[in-house]
């Protein structure tokens, strides 16, 4: 879990995380906008190509493995749900109707789901957690909120190890490991007992001091940010300008 980040020399990994997050949010907005179906298809293909070329076909298109069942369900159920538009197929005395509007909406949903899921995946594969949190801080995300999220993420492996240890100890005692509740309550007790320890550590680290904080990690300088921002704005422009000129 959350061991997403993969070192890669490709453009998407080298892009400044601040420029990347703006580009990705803009593309998510385009995916949810009423753009032409061909535009949506081209954008989805583009995102797939970027992912496959950056991380390899197998890893780059990994999210589709989990989403495949959902895609099939959408393709099977959604076309019958919309009855307006030109009728293409009618069965059982108009009980089941497939229209062009229904087919278009189904395609839109599948393309949007594929595109946005892959965009999120690309962002987290190509961005280190530290960079992501520094990006949030750059956009005035409160320090305590960033601290909370980053520390919570760092605690997940510790709690995961504790959960497996609890299950293993139950196995050694000859108790059933299929019953999830005893292990869950054990894990919750263990986690709650960590609260005073963590609170003391946070106090020792001076988390609530008023003096300015230093950071081990810094995002790249302004020149790189400006160049990457320009690149991002170009891609956003390609997607938006045709609609603005209409």
């Amino acid at each position: 879990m959350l061991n997403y980040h993969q070192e890669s020399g490709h453009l998407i990994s080298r892009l400044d995380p601040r420029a990347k997050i703006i580009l990705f949010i803009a593309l998510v907005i385009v995916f949810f906008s009423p753009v032409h179906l061909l535009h949506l298809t081209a954008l989805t293909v583009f995102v797939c190509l970027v992912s496959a070329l950056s991380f390899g076909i197998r890893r780059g298109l990994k999210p589709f493995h989990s989403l495949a069942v959902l895609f099939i369900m959408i393709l099977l159920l959604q076309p019958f749900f919309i009855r307006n538009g030109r009728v293409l197929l009618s069965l059982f005395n108009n009980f089941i109707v497939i229209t062009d509007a229904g087919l278009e909406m189904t395609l839109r949903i599948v393309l949007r789901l594929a595109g946005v899921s892959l965009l999120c995946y690309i962002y987290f594969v190509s961005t280190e957690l530290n960079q992501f949190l520094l990006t949030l801080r750059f956009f005035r995300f409160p320090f305590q909120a960033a601290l909370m999220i980053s520390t919570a993420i760092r605690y997940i492996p510790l709690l995961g190890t504790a959960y497996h240890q609890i299950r293993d100890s139950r196995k050694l005692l000859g108790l059933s490991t299929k019953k999830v509740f005893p292990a869950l309550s054990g894990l919750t007790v263990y986690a709650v007992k960590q609260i005073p320890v963590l609170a003391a550590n946070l106090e020792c680290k001076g988390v609530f001091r008023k003096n300015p904080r230093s950071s081990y990690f810094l995002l790249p300088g302004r020149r790189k940010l400006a160049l990457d921002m320009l690149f991002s704005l170009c891609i956003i422009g390609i997607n938006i300008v045709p609609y603005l000129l209409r």
Partner: protein
Amino acid sequence: MENKTTIQHPAFKIASLIICTGLAALVTALVKFPIPKTNGYFNFVDALVYFTGFTFGPLTGLIAGGIGPAIADIASPYAIWAPVTILAHGLQGLIAGMIMILFRKKDSPSLIAYVITGLIGSVLMVGIYFLGGSIIEGMAVTATQIPFNLLQSIGGIVLAIPLCKAVQAAWPPVRQYRF
């Protein structure tokens, strides 16, 4: 043993939020109960969200209940659901905490309090997932998920009650961790 002033320190509140968020994320991603002969599974996130609201109060319920499962969504191929998850589970935790405040006079809340929490929490969670899912994956597919979401939420409240009692019995100071 920590006293009242220490517990009310901001570091203690942040520590509670961190642990509850991490726990909620882990439980969403790891602790699963497979549904036989299907590809699906139930997870125990609702039980954890209700537990957080009951034990730590509405604010921790809202923040940890919303962000924890959203982190798990972001770490999976279902990242598109993260905003919906924040809203649905965050409000679930908020409701759980608020109802416990209403019934705080008694040492241990009555069954009615749990039933009300379960009803409001389930309706909110299922409603928000339905609205969000309709935009993301279309109304047809989202409608098929309503019974599973409802069952998971009701199962969550049923599990949260013994979970609260078990944790309070094993670690009595947790009764003071309400912000």
